[in-house]
């Protein structure tokens, strides 16, 4: 699993981690050693999606949301 997909999936299940990804992304960039491209995706299309997630994401919605975010990350990485 690529780093961004892992970050996206954690952000779905863990609201606290989501907040860091949304509002202190540079901490994620430095600690997860993201590339410039990955950082731009985190701060751009991935953040846009995270901003729309409910609090919490209910467990029965995890799979659908994970699939959607994974596709967004894969498309952005291509």
């Amino acid at each position, binding site marked *: 699993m690529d780093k961004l997909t892992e970050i996206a999936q954690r952000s779905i299940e863990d*609201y*606290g981690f989501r*907040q860091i990804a949304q509002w202190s992304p540079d*901490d994620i960039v430095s600690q*997860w050693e993201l590339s410039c491209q990955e950082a731009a995706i985190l701060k751009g299309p991935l953040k846009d999606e995270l901003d729309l997630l409910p609090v919490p994401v209910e467990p029965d919605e995890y799979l659908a949301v994970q699939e959607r975010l994974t596709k967004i990350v894969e498309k952005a990485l291509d």
Partner: protein
Amino acid sequence: MANKLRNKVALVTGGASGIGQATIARFAKEGAKVMLADRNRHAAEETLNKIREITPYVGMSVVDVSKEDEVQQMVRDTVDRFNGLDILVNAAAILVLCPQLAEIDERDWDLVMNTNLKGVFLCSKAAIPEMLKGGAGAIVNISSVAGISAYARSLPYSVSKAGVIHLTLTTASQYTPRGIRVNCIAPGTVDTPQARGSSQSSEALRDIANNHPMGRIGSPEDIADTILYLVSDESSYISGSTIVVDGGALTSPPRI
């Protein structure tokens, strides 16, 4: 408008949501001039607009409390805007869910500690000199019952909140003689985005409420009322204390 905090200047971190947001509203209603600080710019702007319906004396600072340069700027902005600083409420915090200790990623430990404990240290470090200039001040740090009893779902969070309690005690020992009271609140489960998020399901939060001795979880206003007490003259003989505000949850016997 009541006037318990008339003309006092208050800085509240984590002010865009939850306990911080409720505190800013409460302070504004009591006549304080308030600086709202948060790293979530969008939520901070929304809160700012709501508080402007109460008072024109409100400002906003976008800040990551784990970054010293941003914290120093936040305090400068507060003093420049309102000509002083009397009250600091350290409400900014995060809760990152973690596995058991031996499996915790060091990065997660750092993320939690940097905001929850180092953030309180940095904000206090920046605010105290300004309070000393004014001859008095009041600081309230927001800990958690997780800082008193074990919270296994996030050891870093639990330890950081325990650290906030001891930071409060030690800061009070240093600065009470110089006119700054420093106290702490340990909330139980409170209906905030953080609690909703960390519960990971609406059902889990309802379960906590249903099994609570009072039949409900706390509201942000429950905590804001206690914060108001601790920064007002009504608590003028209290410093170095931690007040648990959890509806009696810690007193409940464990379910068999």
